[in-house]
């Protein structure tokens, strides 16, 4: 097990040498990720682990990618997507232009899910999906739109439960154990690195999706990120979080109204 002081030393190195600030990440989870990587890469001592992080830029890249979580899936929580489909998107259809931000999109499964929803709501042609993450390798995967074939059975079930009526496999072509999603879906996606800890608002959106990202942040950082979202949402815009996340204890709460049972809030002031 790693000592608290050693975690502090590593985090301080990352900040001083590379500008990555993990000091407001949920500590228990971050510590577990660091220990996991230490074991995985079989460093005999903390000193050697630290030396590698400090002196090897390629390893630094691996370190940042491995201690941040990139696990995601398509149409996770189908009832959430059903709500988007039946309650939220219909209120956007009259707009001339629709901007969606996927903040912390990881490998992009949710961005493709959203593109499918927008397409089936006949509004993909006038939408733009901005997908950001701090992890360039994950973003590159997202940009390619290639996912493991083995996940498709689960995703297809999720899709149907979310109210999808088409054959899910009509959205991709399968080859060599992988699938590539229809490039028409990706035409409306813009991928870019963005660090929620240190980067600013960059546009005004109608819908911000940030699901299961805030769980990795402590409360002060959650509050800062929620304020960033508040600055980035247009009037009557929507903010969607993960099923176990909330804005209830943040400073932006008074300006938002939760939409039904799902973790979707609308900006009302």
């Amino acid at each position, binding site marked *: *097990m790693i000592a608290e002081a050693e975690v502090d030393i590593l985090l301080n190195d990352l900040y001083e040498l590379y500008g990555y600030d993990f000091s407001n990440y*949920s*500590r*228990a*989870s971050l*510590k*577990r*990720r660091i220990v996991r990587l230490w074991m995985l890469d079989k460093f005999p001592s903390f000193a050697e682990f630290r030396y590698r992080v400090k002196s090897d830029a390629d390893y630094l890249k691996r370190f940042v990618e491995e201690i941040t*979580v990139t*696990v*995601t899936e398509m149409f996770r*929580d189908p*009832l959430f997507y059903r709500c988007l489909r039946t309650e939220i998107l219909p209120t956007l259809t009259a707009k001339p232009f629709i901007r969606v931000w996927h903040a912390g999109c990881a490998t992009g499964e949710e961005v493709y899910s959203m593109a499918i929803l927008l397409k089936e709501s006949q509004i993909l042609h006038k939408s733009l999906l901005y997908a950001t993450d701090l992890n360039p390798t994950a973003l590159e995967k997202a940009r390619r739109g290639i996912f493991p074939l083995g996940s498709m059975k689960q995703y297809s079930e999720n899709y149907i439960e979310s109210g999808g009526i088409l054959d899910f496999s009509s959205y991709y072509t399968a080859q060599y154990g992988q699938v590539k999603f229809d490039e028409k879906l990706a035409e409306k996606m813009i991928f870019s690195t963005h660090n929620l800890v240190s980067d600013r608002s960059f546009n005004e959106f109608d819908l911000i999706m940030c699901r*299961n990202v*805030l*769980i*990795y942040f*402590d*409360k002060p950082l*959650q509050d800062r990120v929620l304020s960033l979202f508040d600055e980035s949402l247009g009037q009557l815009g929507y903010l969607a979080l*993960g*099923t*176990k*996340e*909330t804005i209830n*204890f943040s400073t932006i709460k008074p300006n938002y109204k939760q939409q039904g049972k799902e973790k979707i809030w609308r900006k009302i002031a």
Partner: protein
Amino acid sequence: MAENSLKRSCDVVVIGGSTGGLDVLLKVLPALKPTLSFTIIVVLHRKNSADSTLEALLASRTSIPVREVEDKDVLAVGHIYLAPADYHLLIEADKTFSLDYSEKVNYSRPSLDVTFESAADVYGDTLVGILLSGANTDGTKGLAAIKKEGGITIAQKPETAQAPFMPQQAIDNVAVDFILDIPDMISFINALNN
């Protein structure tokens, strides 16, 4: 038997189970004293649908407040917290919960090892870990971590478990402090109360 060993105080009892574990909880919870001087955390391997039926089921068997954890909930004494489906459940040094949607551990999310290890890190010798019935190896490393930090470790008596593999695995690999059947488990937890 148990009372003698409980001179020290207990802050948290963490209970983990897989196949057959829920049945044990449904027997244990109604028999607990309604006002507890510690917190109970329950981690069960469960289907990854985000419904709240398990929370309702557990709550129906006890007057102790039962809550399925939301991110950054504060651990309150006298409450039972349930790990939500499809997240790992961790505990922060400031006694709040964190959720984590990283890779499955032992084919499981929530994983018992993850919560046990995290709780051991924060609660040390004021932690009691109980491993129930199951057909998985999850929980053994977690009990070892609890033991190492000075906490008390308990495995359900395998002969009384619907799936004996999981508690047996712990008994074979960790010098667990107690191996208990369900009535003894109930007496043990009640005796922790101040």
